[in-house]
């Protein structure tokens, strides 16, 4: 397991928490692009976590209130795929879970002014996420 101070390498995987309602398993594109949109307070980019810094992907659920944790799905995306989409990965240490990073290009300011470009990226991220789901919502 890597220390979160270690450099991020192209062979790493990043964990993304996905609200369960953004996933409809019966559809051709089950995970929706909305799962990769920034909240208004994510001016520095959407949150992800380095899989190399935790024992299991589920460990990053520690950032969510316990009663909401069962409602989350989890997917992983490779750093290489993110980079191929023109995205970067920036460490952003937090107290509640190790390996926290942000994707600076997917921030709430860009989301308002570059809607079309970001939507195209978010559709591709949703396609990748669908291939790499590691957990569906428990409720």
């Amino acid at each position, binding site marked *: 397991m890597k220390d979160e101070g270690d450099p991020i390498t192209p062979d790493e995987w990043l964990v993304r*928490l996905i*609200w369960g*309602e*953004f996933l*409809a398993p019966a*559809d*051709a*594109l089950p995970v*929706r*692009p*909305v799962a990769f*949109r*920034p*909240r*208004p*307070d994510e001016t520095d980019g959407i949150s992800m976590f380095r899989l190399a810094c935790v024992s299991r992907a589920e460990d990053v659920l520690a*950032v*969510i*209130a316990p*009663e*909401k*944790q069962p*409602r989350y799905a989890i997917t992983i995306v490779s750093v290489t795929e993110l980079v191929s989409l023109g995205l970067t990965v920036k460490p952003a240490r937090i107290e509640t879970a190790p390996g926290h990073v942000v994707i600076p290009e997917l921030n*709430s300011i860009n*989301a308002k002014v570059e*809607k*079309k470009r970001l*939507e*195209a990226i978010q*559709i591709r991220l949703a396609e990748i996420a669908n291939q790499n789901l590691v957990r569906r919502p428990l409720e």
Partner: protein
Amino acid sequence: MPTWATRHLEVIPDLELPRAHLNGAAQAEPAADTPGSDEWARTIDKLLAIRQLEDDWDGQGSPAPSVEVVDSALVLALLLRREGIASPSLVVQGVAGDVCFDWQPGGGKYIELEVTGPYTADVFIHTPGQPLRHLTLSGSGAAQ
């Protein structure tokens, strides 16, 4: 009273939304047995549930959509149903106080309609092999 511009009736074909029935005829008041009416009822029920959400509904601090945004989405849903459009594959609150509808009519096509403010929406049309299309809808009309 603000509402969706009547011009939107003219631009609905541009949105490439699937129709609920084959003849495509618009109906003023869909009957209970109209194809797709159950699905639209579920969509409207979902919107009413979204209207009850509070901030931090996801445990990560996402804001709830405002009543004005949800009501705009409700009016749009009723307009689309009246126009004979198929109910969306999914309707859900977004993480930025918005309401998202989407349709997946087949062939990898993905159409998303995101109500971002009172009578304001972005529409994205993704067709494999083609550039993503983006249209905006507002109370005063539509633009590409």
